[in-house]
């Protein structure tokens, strides 16, 4: 196969994850009280996105 889909997919989720984490760190905590039951979902879910992206990148690189 020509292009391993896991490469762009890993990059995309890693970038989105980093954006979510950064936004989660610097945004006003009031928005989490208003929307997501006080949970900083951006921070939490950003980490999950980034981890998923990282795993995909690792898998795409593993076989060279």
């Amino acid at each position: 196969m020509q292009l391993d889909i896991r490469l762009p997919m890993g990059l995309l989720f890693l970038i989105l994850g980093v954006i979510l984490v950064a936004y989660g760190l610097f945004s006003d905590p009031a928005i989490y009280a208003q929307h997501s039951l006080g949970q900083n979902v951006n921070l939490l879910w950003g980490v999950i996105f980034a981890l998923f992206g990282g795993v995909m990148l690792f898998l795409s690189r593993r076989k060279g």
Partner: protein
Amino acid sequence: MHVYALSPLLAVAGSMDKPTAPSSVLLQLATVDYLILAIYFAFVIGIGWVIRRYMKTSSDYFESGRSLPAWICALGFIGANLGAQEVMGMAASGAKYGIATSHFYWIGAIPAMVFVGIFMMPFYYGSKARSVPEYLKMRFDEKTRTFNALSFAVMTVFSSGISMFALAKLLNAILGWNFDACIVISSLIVLVYIYTGGLTSAIYNEVLQFFLIVLGFLPLVLLGLKDIGGWDGLMKNLDGYSAAKGMPGAWSHSWAHMGNPADNPIGIEWFGLIVGLGFVMSFGYWCTDFLVIQRAMAAKNMNSARRTPLIAAIPKMLFPALVILPGMLAIGLYYKGGTASMPLPIAADGNPDYNMVVPAMLAKYFPHGMLGIGLTALMASFMSGMAGNVTAFNTVWTYDLYQRWFNKNASDAHLIKVGRLTTIVGLLISAVCAYAAAKFNNIMDMLQLVFGFVNAPLFATFLLGMFWRRSNGHGAFFGLLIGTISAAIFQGSTIAMGETPSLLKGGWLGIHHTFSSSMAQNFWMAICAFTGCFVGTLVISLATAPNRTNEELRGLVYSLTDKPKEEAGTPWYSRPMPLGLLVLAGALVLNIIFW
């Protein structure tokens, strides 16, 4: 084909009024949300751009060169179907019908997906046909193929138009975006990545979109569950809601209230459900619709092609948690705290506007950041719905209609050009359909009805074609016609409770039976069409001479084809049969748990 897949989408499309500037918007986006949207679409287009240089032959462009691994095809297989109709429509049904909506999965999709993988894929893939209509030509004759290719081409292009319309309408309603701009931009994005990368591009983007929807919607479900007090809290509120609706317990059980159509909100009894939805409609869609079969036919070998629907069935049977649960949560929260806790818009009939369940949940639980993710996932699902239809359309047009009827000796390079041009034309027609849908709501309902007539009988043709070698071309073609006509007559002589007779609702031949819901009327119409086609094909085949020799039928019919053999040492989970049985067992367990 889309007879059941489409209906929730039409509900979405039909629920909103003409596209005007809305008085108040439900969602406001922040910079970070726009950034997320922009990055996603940059990737989508980028993928098409990178793989365009691998598009050397028409097989690369239309069939991904039959080179993809099973897991990618499998995610494409469900991704192509995970359009807006699933995300928005299933949530709407979850609110409207409760857990019983899962019948579309656990009795609908799963058994059919197992059947196509184990029993039918050997003929689709093994025949080397490039499309489903082409298989019909090899097995039966040219007229059966052309009939199927034409109806399929028209249907896909309209379906794509409906996705486009629903997307533009939704963005207009919840974000206040310009309707025309949404149509233009969404078709341009789809155009660029299909034009450049063909089927591979579409499948890759379906894979991306699959993960985006799963990861993007999971927190919505988790937050909703937490808010309502976990599963027990949800059940308590749903029981309260169903009691208030006069059907105690109906929202929290899938089978317990299926004895009588009056006891459940779907308005259907178990027999019509199992035979109509579980057998005729689902098998008709998952086993014959080229839109999904095309994904499996892109696999790199027979084993991968057969495993494609089986692997796809595993996430598919867990999807209710992702797409139906949000609807159930929304209605539970709505009941729990009145409109203050879950502000669902109210529709004209006084019930909550079920189609706005997903946007309302997004608005309530997602702060900026995750809101961008949720909205991107929603838009991606609309677009991959369009892209799936467009890739199926350009393949059928190019191979089954253009190459056959207009240019038999077309060179391979010429076919790619035709395919690319067809992509443009297909999207233009889709846009016209989108505007037609915006202007005349009835056109779309009418078309959906006609598609239903044409598609309901199809599975009988394939079943007899693949498993009865005596069935022949005349039998298949006229059997299909008989099935279609039976469907029309059935629809014309029945009606759903509370409807007035019309071309659209039925009863125009006089009312001989009244169903308790239009869903029940649809299921029984499908049963009637299937039976008409089955008997018609059987009788006409026996009355006319076979038009294919046994030698010609080798590889196309069960009794004349060697059973696919797995290489020695293939582990059990890579063998279709054990995998299929495992999937069926899983679906059975889910049915029992949520009985």
